[in-house]
């Protein structure tokens, strides 16, 4: 019998939700790390009981936690994130260059094959890797050579928030950075290049087709088709069929193409989920109706999924790391809101039920399918 474990990071702690494969009855444990912001926690695909968590605080800075028993117990591991060499500078609000300063870890991506290897995306934007289970961290500094001096923080900070590992090619990975864009390496991080051709940011950039500077919110990949990427940009939902070499818009009939998360069905590489949000200044669903949109055609044609979701007076947001899928059949889809609800669908989005309703604002949702 399968088991589902949902890892939820919130503004005031982490929660772990578990259910059997029916996904009808849920146990909730937590808060773990009560009072701390848990930007992200994620399990190792190679050892699902190995979890990593980013615990952060405006008072106390960054702490990293690791569990070896699926989140029952935790131990602090290394929290020293030192930029490689002389950190250098990036573009600042006033047009001057500003030194890189570590603030927090936004996203963790464990290796697909080694439980002791994990990547961390941080603010100010950089990529770190640990090969010893999080005890020590080394920067993959070549990323910042990909025009890093031109990157500038948006209002939400200059965070590296997305790390996508290519399951068919260990040397290839993608990262995405707020207000900088997508970057790809084909040599395990030794060199990087911007992968933003086809993105257009006519409202945000003086040169709408600039090589860097695009505010990418999230990218997602289906493991069976690693050259196909889906993107939720600040505005626009996009698709690449050539590993990020070029992008085409697939917003189609969405009510708004602004939003944060995007995810792919585990068994249908052309089925994609997004949560449209009204605008960059109004971070809530259009018309007060919380709707997930699903495309079964790889984009452009979208259907609203509303059953079980509030369809009036709903003004929550769904953040970029707060959506995930399980790998059962039919697949489960999960997302958390800034209102503290975690919604689950055991029917690939056809209907939804809140697992919990009153958590602190949800920052991240990850799902593990355990056998």
């Amino acid at each position, binding site marked *: 019998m399968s088991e589902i474990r949902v890892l939820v990071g919130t503004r005031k702690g982490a929660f772990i939700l578990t259910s059997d494969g029916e996904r009808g009855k849920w146990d909730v444990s937590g808060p773990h790390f009560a009072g701390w912001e848990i930007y992200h926690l994620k399990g190792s695909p190679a050892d699902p009981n190995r979890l990593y968590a980013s615990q952060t605080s405006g*008072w106390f800075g960054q*702490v990293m936690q690791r569990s070896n028993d699926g989140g029952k117990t935790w131990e602090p591991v290394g*929290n020293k994130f*030192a930029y490689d060499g002389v950190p250098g500078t990036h573009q600042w609000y006033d047009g001057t260059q500003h030194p890189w300063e570590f603030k927090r870890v936004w996203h963790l991506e464990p290796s697909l094959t080694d439980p002791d290897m994990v990547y961390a995306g941080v603010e100010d934007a950089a990529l770190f890797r640990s090969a010893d289970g999080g005890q020590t961290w080394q920067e993959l500094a070549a990323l910042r050579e990909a025009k890093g001096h031109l990157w500038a923080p948006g209002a939400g900070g200059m965070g590296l928030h997305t790390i996508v590992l290519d399951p068919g090619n260990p040397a290839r990975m993608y990262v995405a950075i707020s207000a900088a864009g997508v970057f790809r390496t084909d040599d395990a991080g030794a060199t990087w290049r911007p992968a933003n051709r086809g993105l257009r940011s006519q409202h945000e950039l003086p040169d709408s087709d600039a090589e860097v500077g695009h505010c990418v919110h999230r990218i997602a990949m289906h493991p069976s088709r690693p050259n196909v990427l889906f993107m939720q940009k600040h505005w626009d939902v996009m698709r690449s069929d050539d590993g990020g070499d070029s992008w085409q818009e697939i917003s189609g009939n969405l009510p708004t193409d602004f939003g944060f998360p995007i995810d792919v069905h585990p068994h249908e590489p052309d089925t994609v989920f997004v949560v449209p949000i009204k605008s960059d200044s109004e971070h809530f669903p259009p018309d007060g109706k919380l709707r997930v949109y699903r495309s079964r055609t790889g984009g452009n044609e979208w259907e609203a999924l509303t059953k079980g979701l509030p369809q009036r007076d709903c003004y929550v947001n769904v953040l970029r790391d707060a959506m995930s899928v399980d790998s059962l059949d039919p697949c489960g889809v999960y997302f958390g809101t800034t209102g503290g609800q975690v919604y689950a669908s055991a029917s690939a989005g056809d209907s939804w039920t809140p697992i919990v309703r009153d958590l602190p604002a949800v920052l991240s949702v990850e799902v593990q399918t355990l056998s």
Partner: protein
Amino acid sequence: MIRVVLPANLRTLARIRGEVQLTLQGPATQRAVLDALEAGYPMLRGTIRDHATQQRRAFLRFFACKMDLSLESPDAPLPDAVVNGTEPFRIVGAMAGG
């Protein structure tokens, strides 16, 4: 023996109940107290002062004997009442305000 009082979040992180009691080998200064504290509780490294610069984190303060010692030199001697354990050295999280 120097007594150190930590904010609740750091006590939880370091699995400390109540005060921490430290015995220092050399002169009793802020730096010596924090060095000894971090040596005994490595998970606190980086949470009170920056890993690289060793500067106090912006929203933490150091209080003792009804005084704010946060802006004192880290190498200045601590008050006698802290050194002899009459008064604790308090590490305090700033009010969030709002």
